[in-house]
């Protein structure tokens, strides 16, 4: 039985920018694999390399953010390809919760199916949280899935998550497979009523 996920706390890492797509999170060459093992070290690989070449450092390479458990992003994060390799790479790097303004739906669905809580905050709050973490990378960021709050040090930010999804995390039903299997008799009954599944007989 999967575990209940109610509260995650740790240091955070901000990755700024809208429309960060899954090709940037994990470039396609790393999809040449039959397991998700080893993806963590390649998260944001080309962005990290590109910045290094310009003498800059990607947050995932900054010592002050090493060991972070909460990823703080902006709008439309995870757009593009459906590759679950993207949230898998982020999770394997060490991230245990994601906070941002908005997410692509497939990316969001992948995070839920993996048990990686993913909460929405306003544009202003995402920027404020990023600024607080940049100012003090050691500040504790607590992501409360049950109360739908993100606490950064002493500051509280309201967060959003669809009620059904929130319930999936707090009750441990984020791994839906078991419940879907329990419904197989109803699935078979349903299939018998769908015209194309009965060859229009």
């Amino acid at each position, binding site marked *: 039985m999967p575990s209940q996920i109610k509260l995650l706390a740790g240091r955070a890492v901000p990755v700024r920018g809208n429309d960060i797509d899954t090709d940037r999170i994990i470039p396609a*060459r790393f*999809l*040449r694999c*039959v397991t998700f093992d080893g993806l963590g070290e390649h998260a944001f690989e080309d962005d990290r390399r590109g910045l290094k070449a310009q003498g800059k450092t990607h947050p995932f390479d900054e010592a002050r953010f090493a060991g972070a458990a909460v990823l703080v992003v902006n709008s439309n994060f995870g757009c593009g390809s*459906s590759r*679950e390799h993207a949230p898998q790479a982020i999770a394997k790097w060490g991230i245990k919760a994601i906070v941002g303004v908005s997410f692509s739906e497939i990316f969001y669905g992948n995070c839920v199916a993996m048990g990686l809580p993913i909460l929405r905050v306003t544009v202003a709050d995402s920027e404020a949280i990023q600024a607080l973490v940049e100012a003090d990378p050691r500040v504790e960021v607590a992501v409360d899935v049950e109360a739908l709050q993100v606490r950064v040090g002493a500051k509280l930010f309201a967060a959003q998550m669809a*009620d059904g999804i929130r319930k999936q995390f707090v009750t441990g039903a984020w791994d839906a497979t078991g419940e879907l299997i329990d419904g197989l008799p109803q699935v078979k009954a349903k299939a018998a009523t769908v015209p194309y599944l009965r060859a229009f007989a």
Partner: protein
Amino acid sequence: MSKATLFDKVWDLHAVRALSSGQTQLLIGLHLIHEVTSPQAFSMLRERNLTVAFPERTVATVDHIVPTEDQSRPYADDMAEEMMTAIEANCRQFGIRLFQPGSGKQGVVHIVAPEQGLTQPGMTVACGDSHTATHGAFGAIAFGIGTSQVRDVLATQTLSMGRMKVRKVQVDGKLTPGVAAKDVILHVLRQLTAKGGVGFAYEFAGTTIAAMTMEERMTVCNMAIEGGARCGYINPDDTTFAYLKGREHAPKGAAWDKAVAWWRSIASGADAVYDDVKTFRAEDIQPYVTWGISPDHGIGISEAIPAKESFAKDEWATVEEAYQYMGVKPGQRLEGFPVDVVFIGSCTNGRMSDLRAAAAVVRSHGGKVAATVKAIVVPGSEAVKVEAEKEGLDKVFSAAGFEWREAGCSMCLAMNPDKLKGRQVSISTSNRNFKGRQGSPEGRTILSSPAMAAIAALEGKVADVRKFLK
């Protein structure tokens, strides 16, 4: 909340029950798999001692890693060979049909399923690939899923899903010469933005869409995901039925008549209620090119690259990043921008009508691929390749200096040996101009229609295809 739309009718028909989370257990009528996002799903099944509930409702093909030059086995790339071997073994073990290279049925998953008549109106379709939205062209509710969800569909033929809102995207009027379905969707994406469709299903409607062929409709629905909409669809009509009739998996005989009657009944009714409606005029659409790093960074070929101030303030950083990455400036026009590589193919534009449109430009222009340009044409499926060769399109392309390849995804995502090098500029008929998308971390992509890609190959630079039409 939407009512009486095709989305509502198809969703309600496939809703098995409410789960404890409040999500819906949704029955999936057609499940498509490929070699990249399925191996881990099969591993999860084995770890949990599960089996495939409805093996006859899953169909597999190989497209992403397949080389489009030398396809002899074992593949030169060991990892590609391992992925290929894995899907063969998984399909064998669980009794799933696999369209193998050489079978005449292999190709890009979103091209082969419609071609075989597998995709039909009123279905729910899922695949571990974001461009599953393509199948919505038939009036199916089709969406991309991740690998854990592929596991769920294999194990139960269902998914845990939340209902979407429905936005009607209405395009009316007659497209002007030189303007293609790809230009329509790039225009829509620019106006509705890359994130504007999050939470929505897009219903494409209006006289422009109604006048489109099925292949054009597939191009439009294919890129719904680039606007954030997980699925896009078009109500089925006589064009849809004419396309399906006689295809291998389409209903036959008495079942055909019943099917058509049912398909008509599931279209959005006159009483349909939408959560939102957006309208566009076909006359406003020119041949499009993208100038940035997101598919909504598009402009008509005669327009200048927009200033960052024309975007919402929280987009400015991304827009500046796009100027810098692409090496362009606001106010600049793209006509005359030199290109190094031309890619014609993909699930967006790898069908017969796309190849015909590109070949027509080659014939009309009469010249050859510019000496500085590498141009490749990758048919979307083995069936497309055979048909194109029957029409002599391969010879038109080869004589003009284009490389004529085997079917696959190829340079759309560059998982096979076809890749950009360094900061090369590609004009591509695919769907994503993301940073690094075409295999080089600094590579640059300009998205366009097949005709605009073909003219760029011949001219060696971005050009307005309308100036070359006879």
